[in-house]
């Protein structure tokens, strides 16, 4: 049964009073994610915006057990929590790590890979705001091509990020885990149903959630949903789902309006025609790749139930 928004409980497991910026895509996503997860859950959050805006001691926005230690160990920490739950016979408790893109694509990639390869019984959620926002908008491996950040500034020699976004969901698919999905704070119905599916799946589950960031991306704070929607429309973000090796594209992008998406945000405003053309080319290649990969895996893993 697919969830509808009205099926979500009134109560906020991630309660109000947290200190995220107005219009924070991550906070929007986390709130909905938490409602689907319910109370039989343990949350681990590494160093990230979330570890700060979910409250400073003695406050905590989580009404479920919450654990935090350092930056790069989400995969390992949730492994430890999951094994502890197993020892206690608490099979109904879902162990969830929620990390930023820096904590996932960069410094935390090793621990993430280890946990995935061991097929730990956990959900790993990366909220992807495409830079180190907590420390003041530095480039991460997840920063898109062209984006201006404080470490990829617009200067005389180069303008914005010269590299291309690291495809962590694809890396996770390559681990052969039971469930990998991408989602977006701007598509709550798609998001909550992916969280539900993840919750109902055993083994390692990876979700990467697109989370627009007002101060980092520099757009009007009322436009978070709009920015996220445009990202999917133009192909800067794809909504995908990979179950037991079979990739499915949940929403066909229109592959247009890239320029509208870019011009909405201060981080891209400097981009010239050449840079935009390069970016357009890269996302079209990505789109072709995913279509081909989806076809291939649907054929290759048809009927496969076990992890790949």
């Amino acid at each position, binding site marked *: 049964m697919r969830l509808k928004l009205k099926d979500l409980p009134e109560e906020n497991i991630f309660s109000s009073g947290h200190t995220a910026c107005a219009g924070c895509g991550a906070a929007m996503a986390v709130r909905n994610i938490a409602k689907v997860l319910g109370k039989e859950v343990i949350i681990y959050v590494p160093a990230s915006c979330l570890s700060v805006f979910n409250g400073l001691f003695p406050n905590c926005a989580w009404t479920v057990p919450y654990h935090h230690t350092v930056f790069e160990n989400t995969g*390992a920490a949730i492994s430890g929590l999951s094994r*502890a739950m197993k020892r206690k016979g608490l099979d109904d408790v879902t162990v969830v790590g929620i990390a930023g893109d820096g904590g996932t694509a960069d410094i935390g990639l090793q621990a993430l890979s280890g946990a995935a390869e061991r097929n730990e019984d956990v959900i790993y959620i990366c909220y992807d705001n495409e830079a180190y926002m907590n420390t003041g908008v530095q480039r991460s491996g997840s920063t898109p091509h062209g984006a201006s950040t404080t470490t990829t500034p617009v200067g005389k020699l180069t303008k914005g990020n010269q590299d291309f976004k690291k495809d962590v969901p694809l890396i996770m698919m390559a681990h052969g885990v039971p469930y990998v999905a991408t989602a977006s704070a701007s598509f709550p119905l798609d998001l909550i149903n992916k969280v539900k599916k993840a919750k109902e799946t055993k083994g390692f589950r990876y979700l990467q959630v697109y989370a627009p960031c007002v101060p980092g991306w520099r757009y009007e704070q009322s436009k978070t949903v709009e920015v996220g929607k445009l990202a999917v429309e133009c192909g800067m973000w794809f909504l995908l789902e990979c179950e037991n090796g079979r990739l499915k594209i949940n929403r066909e992008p229109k592959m247009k309006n890239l320029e509208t998406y870019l011009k909405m945000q201060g981080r891209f405003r400097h981009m010239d025609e050449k840079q935009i053309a390069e970016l357009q080319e890269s996302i079209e290649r990505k789109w072709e790749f995913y279509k081909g990969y989806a076809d291939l895996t649907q054929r290759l893993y048809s009927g496969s139930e076990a992890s790949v």
Partner: protein
Amino acid sequence: MRRVVGSNYATAHAVMRARVEVIAAYPITPQTQMVEHIAKFINDGIMDCEYIKVEGEHSSISAVIASQAAGVRSFTSTASQGLALMHELLFSAGGLRLPIVMGVVNRSVGSTGGIWVEYNDSMPQRDCGWLQMYVETNQEVHDMILQAYKIAEDKRVLLPIMICSDGFILSHTVEPVELAEQEEVDEFLPKYEARHSYLDPKDPIGSGIVTPREYRQEFAYQIHRAMLEAKDVIEEVNRDFADAFGRDHSGLVETEFMDDADAAFLTLGTVTSTARGVVRELREKGKKVGLVKVRAFRPYPVEKIAEVCGDVKAVGVYDRSVSFGVGGPHYLEARNALFDSDVPVIDFIGGLGGRDVTEADVRSIYEVLLEAAKTGKAKRNVEWVSTRGVALG
């Protein structure tokens, strides 16, 4: 059951007997056999435990911090670079007051070093909020793993603890060890039940919430106070263990011939055995020498060292590690313990990178100490033992 084993086996056996429920560990010389033995125990069905074969030590310590925070008795072990890699998380384990036990097999860290014993892996971790005990024999390693859980889990302590043993000298040298039976361990160390807050969906807590400056200082003070209280707990648990198993390891420090000694030598780890032989030999020759085997480095037994060295005329401190530009870490601790004594305190740095510390070395150390006891002066405060280009004294 008496068996001839190395310290890695002795540790693995004690961990099994302690009914540890989550282990995360990664191999590194000279600790590797420890993770192998545990894997074998589990595969043979004689040990019932979650064993997370992580992809590195940063993850092993992260995982056991999480499992212990969830109220489950946990263990990890490492050596050298592995311990250095864990460094960041050691503060979290201490700060969250988690009674994790870690087997550390000492080995030098960094360039230029190899795979042999030195304490520059564990001693730089002294400020992370972990208790540290150093041992001399494989029997002592085994016994201290069992004691460690009882010390760490005591409500006056609730801090993690590392049991440090000399790489190769203990890990790869076999000797007869009395391996504890399950029933006797169950009586000494009952199955773990967390008596403090832990991550429980029925009773949620936040563990490790970012802490503003209004609170951090008090948390730090509580760790300091627990560390001080741990001194009593170490002594108590040692007595309980001696009652239960008939083996008395003397708690914080063990002394030999200290009643009327003029010159005392403070040791840690296996060099104690070498020094023990030399002290006995010198005593037969009428030399008034004594030996203090320091077992706890954190908390450092300040009062006990001041007490046992109260009437000596010179104190030597053994250091298998260096704090460059000052002297050895152990020397600094001992000097602090003897701050109101006016006898010479001399640091003897040696055995670095696994270099053998010989009886001849220890004889020359005692010669320097007896001379200082006679004159009341040290020629130098820091001596480099058997170091090419350096003359002792």
